[in-house]
């Protein structure tokens, strides 16, 4: 260090600067060249608690425009020394409510230029210049004045280190800016992108230097091959994230595309101010984050598609385009009329056909009585724009034509086989009708879509708190049958057992019921009355069962089933409906 200063080495000032330079290696001496006792130092600003910064939005400007990158670097540079900062904030006092705030923990550095004049330290104070891209002028002046004060307080002694230390401490406290609830530091919107970008890059650089133990492969991994989840900040290695999410998306299990840490999601989100998401609602990852991990674009596209499909399927009003090359969705834009419909239908049905009491929701469209009035049957495919009738699936025939759903005979053998298989080897969720096929395990099912607990054998609702009651009540048709079909519903036997209720009616077993008539359970776990080998049943009975159960079909299936309402006239060409089961 001393070499740099040459013959001035014995000067007190040179000694001080070289000492400070040893402590702060990033101190560059003699920056200007003309003054040997000058130096320059960039002080990192990393407030411990972060610094809350507001960027006032210009009046009337849509929020999207804020995120456009800076048009040029000069623009950012011209904003230096923050001349624009204050006028900008003053100009829009009214918009302060619509401002967006960010808590940043890494900010562009504060630049200190110092010069030690002749006579320093005993007679003359040091000269400090401070500049910053974003700090308000007032604060800069305040900090600069502190230099003189410190020099005075120290009894006019060597002050450079003490001053740098003072600045460093102030930076750690965020320069005491934006501390109170009401008081928030406002920075010109021009700087927003630059500041956010700086924060992000600094965080990333820090992250990459760290080492993490990935909770999946249990290997220590460098930050460079890890990813921190945006919603919860858990870190996993990219390889494991890719493996897991790829397999989830390939299998269609998109609800699992979320953090893999145990218990994650029960604690509140740790991320910064602007997270509009309800932590309980949807913790699956955004497609943009999947791309960042990175996942293959095609995989992410499939994810987006599946998410959309799930949304559509959970909307009971969705019908699908009858053009077999399209099969796009069509929804009823006006939700109000739709909501009223199923209730109406259910109420009417219960009176007319008391032997068919099933989940009222299942009635929605499949029952002819509950069909929408002709005027409301127009559906327009969201993908290809085809206007068709949601009941008869023909191209739109105008509202004065009364049509009927298509008949069963129009289905191809393949379609029928596919439906029969679904009838026999899947169970619809009693709440949302999503069909599930068991691959292994016990018969206590939890719907993949709506988390309803139900019995795989009979489709009865199970109580969330005590789901196994159903299998321990000897009156239940599923008594002692929790582990039936443990190896999965593979097709050897149909699962379609109807829970012991009359005519396929799922029965809910409540605690009271079993308590009232407590009796010793029968000694052997013999299955009650109804045999389960539906594969061996007479075709007629199977058909009846299909009839009873089709009301439970999921929306995709309903679409097909709406067309098998028997005894209805129709004018449809069945060829057009080939490959209907492709909806899967």
């Amino acid at each position, binding site marked *: 260090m001393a070499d740099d200063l040459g013959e001035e080495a014995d000067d007190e000032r040179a000694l001080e600067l070289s000492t400070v330079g040893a402590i702060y290696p990033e101190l560059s001496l003699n920056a200007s060249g003309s003054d040997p006792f000058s130096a320059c130092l960039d002080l990192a600003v990393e407030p411990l608690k972060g610094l809350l910064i507001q960027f006032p939005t210009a009046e009337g400007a849509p929020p999207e425009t804020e995120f456009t990158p800076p048009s040029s670097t000069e623009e950012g540079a011209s904003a230096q020394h923050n001349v624009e900062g204050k006028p900008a904030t003053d100009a829009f006092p009214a918009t302060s409510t619509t401002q967006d705030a960010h808590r940043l923990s890494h900010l562009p550095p504060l630049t200190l230029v110092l010069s030690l004049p002749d006579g320093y330290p005993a007679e003359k104070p040091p000269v400090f210049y401070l500049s910053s891209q974003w700090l308000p002028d007032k604060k800069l002046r305040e900090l600069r004045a502190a230099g003189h004060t410190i020099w005075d307080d120290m009894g006019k002694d060597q002050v450079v280190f003490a001053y740098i230390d003072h600045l460093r401490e102030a930076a750690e406290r965020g320069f005491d800016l934006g501390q109170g609830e009401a008081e928030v530091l406002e920075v010109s919107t021009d700087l927003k992108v630059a500041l956010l970008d700086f924060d992000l890059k600094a965080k990333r650089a820090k992250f990459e230097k760290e080492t993490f133990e990935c909770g999946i492969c249990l290997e220590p991994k460098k930050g460079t091959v890890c990813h921190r989840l945006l919603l919860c900040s858990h870190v*996993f290695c990219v390889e494991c994230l890719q493996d897991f999410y790829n397999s989830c998306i390939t299998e269609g299990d998109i609800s699992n595309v979320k*953090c*893999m840490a145990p218990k994650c999601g029960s604690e509140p989100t740790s991320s910064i101010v602007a997270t509009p998401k309800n932590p309980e609602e949807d913790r699956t990852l955004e497609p943009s984050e999947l791309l960042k991990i990175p996942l293959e674009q095609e995989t992410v596209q499939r994810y987006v598609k599946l998410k959309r499909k799930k949304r559509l399927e959970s909307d009971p009003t969705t019908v699908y385009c009858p053009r077999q090359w399209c099969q796009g969705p069509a929804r009823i834009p006006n939700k109000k009329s739709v909501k009223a419909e199923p209730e109406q239908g259910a109420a009417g049905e219960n009176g007319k056909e008391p032997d068919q009491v099933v989940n009222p929701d299942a009635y929605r469209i499949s029952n002819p009585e509950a069909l929408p009035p002709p005027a409301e049957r127009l559906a327009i495919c969201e993908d290809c724009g085809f206007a068709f009738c949601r009941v008869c699936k023909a191209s739109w025939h105008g509202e004065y034509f009364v049509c009927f759903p298509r008949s069963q005979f129009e289905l191809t053998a393949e379609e029928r086989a596919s439906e029969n298989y679904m009838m026999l080897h899947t169970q619809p969720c009693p709440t949302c009708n999503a069909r599930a096929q068991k691959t292994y*395990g016990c018969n206590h099912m939890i719907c993949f879509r709506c988390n309803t607990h139900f019995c795989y054998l009979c489709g009865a609702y199970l109580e969330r708190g005590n789901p196994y009651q159903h299998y321990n009540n000897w009156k239940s048709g599923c008594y002692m049958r929790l582990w039936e079909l443990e190896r999965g519903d593979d097709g050897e036997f149909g699962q379609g057992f109807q829970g012991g209720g009359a005519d396929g009616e799922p029965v809910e077993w409540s605690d009271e019921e079993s308590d009232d008539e407590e009796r010793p359970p029968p000694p052997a776990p013999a299955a009650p009355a109804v045999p389960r080998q539906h594969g061996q049943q007479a075709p007629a009975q199977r058909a009846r069962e299909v009839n009873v159960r089709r009301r439970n079909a999921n929306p995709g299936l309903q679409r097909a089933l709406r067309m098998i309402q028997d005894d209805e006239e129709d004018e449809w060409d069945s060829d057009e409906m080939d490959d209907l089961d492709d909806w899967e």
Partner: protein
Amino acid sequence: MAQKRIVKEYSELQKKPLDGMRISLPSEADMHQWQILIDGPKGSPYEGGVFTLHLSLPTEYPFKPPTLSFKTKIYHPNVTNDDKGSMCLGMLRADEWKPSSKIEAVLSFAKALLLEPQPDDAVEGGIAREYKENKKEFIKNAKAWTKQYAKK
């Protein structure tokens, strides 16, 4: 990946075994099937017994949960009273399983269950009711079964 993690978890559990548990592989060639011997925890009606459990790790582990079953008959509300000795609760359920849960946690969970059954999540309703309403009888039965089936 699965294999590597399983090996790692296995060796960790061999180095730092859980209290009152011994783990072995029934077949050295298959890392996916583990045999676990658990001592009945002190203070529980299972004390003095040794229970054999079978842990089966699916090929998709850790993305899919392991399955745990009791090979030794046990009188417990959360274990089926048949030759399968199946369990179906908590973290072992497919929808609650998280890939970064570890086998160690699964085994600790099983042990905690011996100390404190969860009658509200029972697979054996009769035993659960007895546990809740007639604890004495439950303890008596559990002890008798331990003596009969889980003797050291």
